[in-house]
């Protein structure tokens, strides 16, 4: 797949962001701030990095991407639809009665969705298992797991973080969407998170800290997987919750708040898509 121009990706990212605002409004679902903060991570992965084919979603040699922060599932769905894994029309019934795409993904609910998420701390252990499987099966695909910063409160994240370097799982990478907020407080205050970069490095990971809204930096970091050091990679992506819609940025009310119709219009204008 030829790499799209960065301006194209910038437009795609803005269009995805508007889609998320619309989905939240139409379905009445929260977690919009959390979904917006990881859009650039998803765009870099799904357009520049992942060896995937929407026509063969179950290809055993595909790269795996697990969005372990399942409350941001709307972002994953929008990306998968845009990449052609399923019709864009599925997004129109997101989270509605009988929908294929529930607010948090069910197992095998749609092509491209690797795991039923929603309970934090599960994605990385499962991802480690997939990386182990690849080694046993002598496949060289990669496994990427996107965690939230709040998710790094969960003990299982650190159990997995201890295990992976001990087995040199260098085809495995974590991306932490470090938007500095969790549900009811600042991430760095609820738990002693900083420095996440130093913590992952201390656990034996090849740790990279970067601007999580810089598609170029994200792409370069993701391209380094598998890392030549033989270790798994941790990308600490500094992000802004609600990124892209100025009146939502870094405002934790948008963890739970659902946009009204006039706010959807305002967002469209702010994204240059009105």
């Amino acid at each position: 797949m030829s790499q799209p121009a960065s301006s194209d990706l910038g437009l795609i990212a803005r269009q995805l962001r508007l889609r998320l605002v619309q989905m939240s409004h139409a379905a009445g679902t929260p977690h919009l701030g959390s979904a917006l903060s990881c859009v650039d991570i998803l765009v870099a992965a799904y357009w520049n990095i992942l060896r995937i084919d929407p026509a063969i979603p179950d290809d055993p040699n595909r790269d795996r991407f697990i969005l372990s922060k399942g409350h941001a599932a709307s972002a994953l769905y929008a990306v998968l639809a845009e990449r052609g894994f399923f019709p864009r029309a599925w997004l129109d019934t997101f989270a509605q009665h009988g929908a294929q795409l529930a607010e948090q993904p069910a197992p095998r609910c749609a092509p491209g969705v690797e795991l039923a998420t929603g309970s934090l701390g599960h994605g990385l252990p499962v991802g480690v298992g997939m990386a182990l499987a690849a080694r046993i099966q002598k496949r060289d695909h990669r496994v990427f797991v996107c965690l939230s910063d709040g998710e790094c409160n969960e003990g299982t994240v650190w159990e997995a973080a201890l295990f992976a370097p001990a087995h040199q799982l260098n085809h495995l990478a974590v991306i932490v969407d470090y938007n500095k907020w969790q549900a009811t407080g600042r991430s760095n205050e609820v738990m002693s998170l900083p420095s996440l970069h130093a913590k992952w490095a201390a656990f034996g990971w090849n740790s990279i800290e970067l601007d999580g809204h810089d598609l170029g930096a994200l792409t370069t970091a993701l391209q380094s997987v598998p890392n030549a050091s033989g270790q798994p990679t941790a990308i600490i992506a500094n992000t802004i919750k609600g990124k892209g819609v100025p009146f939502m940025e870094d405002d934790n009310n948008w963890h739970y708040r659902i946009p009204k119709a006039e706010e959807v219009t305002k967002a469209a204008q702010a994204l240059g898509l009105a």
Partner: protein
Amino acid sequence: MRNAFAQQITTLAQQDPRVVVLSGDIGNRLFDDLKAKCPERFFNCGIAEANMIGMAAGLALSGLRPFCYTITPFLTYRCLEQIRVDLCYHHVPVVLVGTGSGLSYASLGATHHSCEEMGMLRLLPNLTVAAPADAWEVRASLRAALQSPGPVYLRIGKKGEPAVHTAEPAFAFGHAIPLRPGNDVAILSAGTVLPVALATADALHNDGIAAAVYSFHSLKPLDTATLADVFQRCRVVATLEEHSILGGLGGAVAEWLADQRQPQARLIRCGTPDEFLHLTCEQEEAREHFGLTPVALSQRLRDGFRSP
């Protein structure tokens, strides 16, 4: 029984390249043969059981067939959410083998006991829950588990459990194994207490009471055909397990019984009470303490048989 597990899983790993064994940093020399023969498919996962179960799900989602092994309370109580979400919700073929179940580690205190876990796990959709009675049933249940399309939980003993069968019995989940015939009383035994059930039946026989004995290894799926038969045929049906009388085999049978319309035999649930064991003792004394002995049980069942 753990030796039987190690031997059988090594055989299965050699026969089936999908088999992967995950251990929670236990089994000191137990897996030496497996490690020699299939080194790339054995992993010591450390003392991080929840991660072990998550990894098993990832392996299974990738087409492999993982078996997770550690001491029962650490595999089950600690990891209930992982079992529920990663294994049962995703319906993946992972086999959990809990060793030292029930009161096998009596002397180590309740942190090492598991008298509530079968009840807890029985509540999870998609999970097969079984308690093999001896080394023969361990081997057979492992092979049956490898055929299962969904997650399986097996609770086994530790070491020194007497063999009851003399050859490998025909084994299928949800099909109890009849060992003795009898029309007065039926004893449905789950797990390593089976010799106690047989000795209880002997004692009842001496009192002129004919007691059937079944190795009722599967709590889920439940052998309702055998239940329908014994509850219609006998006057008393007893469940026996090294597990609480709440929620385990006794609980499962009580639920089934509550749904039956016609008058049925009386159910007597035998197991541990709703309390922790605080006595410092070995497994045999623990069973005595809780009345899980042929003398105590035959007394209970005799009284139950003779009273209206």
